[in-house]
């Protein structure tokens, strides 16, 4: 409720500043004009395109990142062998890869998903790696004493103990993925919200461009809500999450 009130105040302020000519009326359309532009069916299609690229990329990164993270968490050898490569690749902003990706993969949802996946991979990989590595050895020994070993130990002890850390990585990745999806559309013109916003702006349809921005923001907000909610609901122990990834040498990057 209070959140909605805050939103209403923001909208009111926007219109007020506009009418007072603090914001130039041509560049800042009235809120009701923006609201009307939200009804454009092609906006919904664009949002769907963005979500699809986002989901595909996140899924790809989820599978690769969590699997590789578990491997690096369990095997010190694999960790040492890949460390330099990862430290080199990780700081590359996914957006900087857009021109190369367009040439190599071509335009389209596939290229977008790959770039989203590239961005999402690192937070997932690194938080999973630390989550697995940081599992309290006493928990593992307890599992062993009570009859678990091998895959069963991984499934019943190591995995669940690393879940809070993996979830943290997933949360970061989900938000980051949307940014990269929209940015890719803006720069490379693959279909989606970013492209919609750029198109409308070039056509002089300023309210429609703003409507695109509002939808992008709302998507980000919903994604944040969904991933935070799932984190809050799962009761996977505080004892474990306290030992999670924050503040480590390898910590996540945006």
């Amino acid at each position, binding site marked *: 409720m209070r959140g909605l009130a805050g939103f209403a105040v923001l909208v009111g302020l926007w219109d007020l500043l506009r009418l007072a000519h603090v914001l130039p009326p041509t560049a800042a359309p009235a809120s009701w004009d923006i609201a009307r532009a939200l009804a454009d069916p092609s906006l919904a299609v664009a949002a769907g395109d963005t979500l699809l690229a986002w989901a595909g990329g996140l899924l790809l990164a989820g599978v690769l990142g969590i699997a590789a993270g578990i491997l690096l968490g369990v095997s010190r050898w694999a960790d040492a062998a890949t460390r330099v490569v990862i430290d080199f690749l990780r700081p590359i902003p996914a957006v900087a890869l857009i021109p190369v990706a367009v040439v190599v993969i071509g335009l389209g949802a596939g290229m977008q998903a790959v770039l989203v996946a590239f961005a999402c991979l690192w937070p997932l990989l690194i938080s999973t790696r630390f989550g697995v590595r940081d599992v309290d050895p006493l928990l593992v020994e307890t599992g062993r*004493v*009570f009859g*678990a070993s091998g895959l069963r130990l991984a499934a019943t002890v190591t995995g669940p103990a690393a879940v809070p850390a993996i979830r943290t990585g997933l949360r970061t990745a989900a938000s980051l993925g949307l940014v990269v999806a929209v940015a890719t559309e803006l720069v490379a013109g693959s279909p989606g919200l970013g492209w919609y916003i750029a198109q409308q702006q070039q056509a002089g349809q300023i309210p429609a461009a703003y409507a695109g921005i509002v939808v992008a923001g709302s998507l980000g907000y919903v994604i944040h809500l969904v991933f935070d909610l799932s984190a809050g609901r799962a009761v996977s122990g505080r*004892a474990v999450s306290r030992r999670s990834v924050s503040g480590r040498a390898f910590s996540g990057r945006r």
Partner: protein
Amino acid sequence: MAEIPLIRATALTKSFTSRGRTTRAIADITFAQAEGEFLGVVGPSGCGKTTLLRCLAGLDHPDTGTIEFDGHPITGIPPALSVVFQEYNRSLFPWLTTLENVRFPLRRPSSLGRRARAATREQAREALSRVGLADFADHHPWQLSGGMQQRVALARAIVSRPRLLLMDEPFASVDAQTRATLEQLTITLTVELGLTVLLITHDIDEAIFMSDRVLVLAARPTHILRELPIDLPRPRDDVETRALPLFQNHRRDIHHLLSPTPDS
């Protein structure tokens, strides 16, 4: 009666090396424990008690010496053994409910049928009610007090009816009242289930009160200073037993053994 002890350790030694520095934890430990016996192990803090327990449990290897479980040298963790760890709050699985924590030892690799699953849940429930936590089956460990967490750890350790129960200073971090209750509870369970318990503690009174025999360990690197049979009558009572002259004598003996300047 059975001539083969349930567990026998012969000439154990153990040192740790880290960053080029070697710490000798166990200098020489030899003992045997018969089935059904309650064996107490007392020793000063840091003398190597946990190290000894970890070797007995198959979680660590002694440098030299042998450990036999039921007449056979151990290779890994003996399946009929269970442990209550010193840091019990860290050894409960926080993502599982109390009931699922207790059921953990009953979950075997073979995918169980519905009926067998229900049976293990019943068993876990029974173990929980033995420690007085039937009403907390659906709580998570971090929703329980320290004493209750310890009860959960105890229930989990007995649910599979182990042949040997190793306990590492199980009551060290609870208040005196809770401690007395848990000591009594452990004795009751031992009798009811016919358990064989090896209890590690640095509390001399606790060792005497609970045990049939007490091993007194020296400071690090540790070895056995004395094996002391405790012939206090059972059932033991928190007030009466502790007031007996024999109890006082045992206590004096062990204190003398462990004090830095023994007068004998």
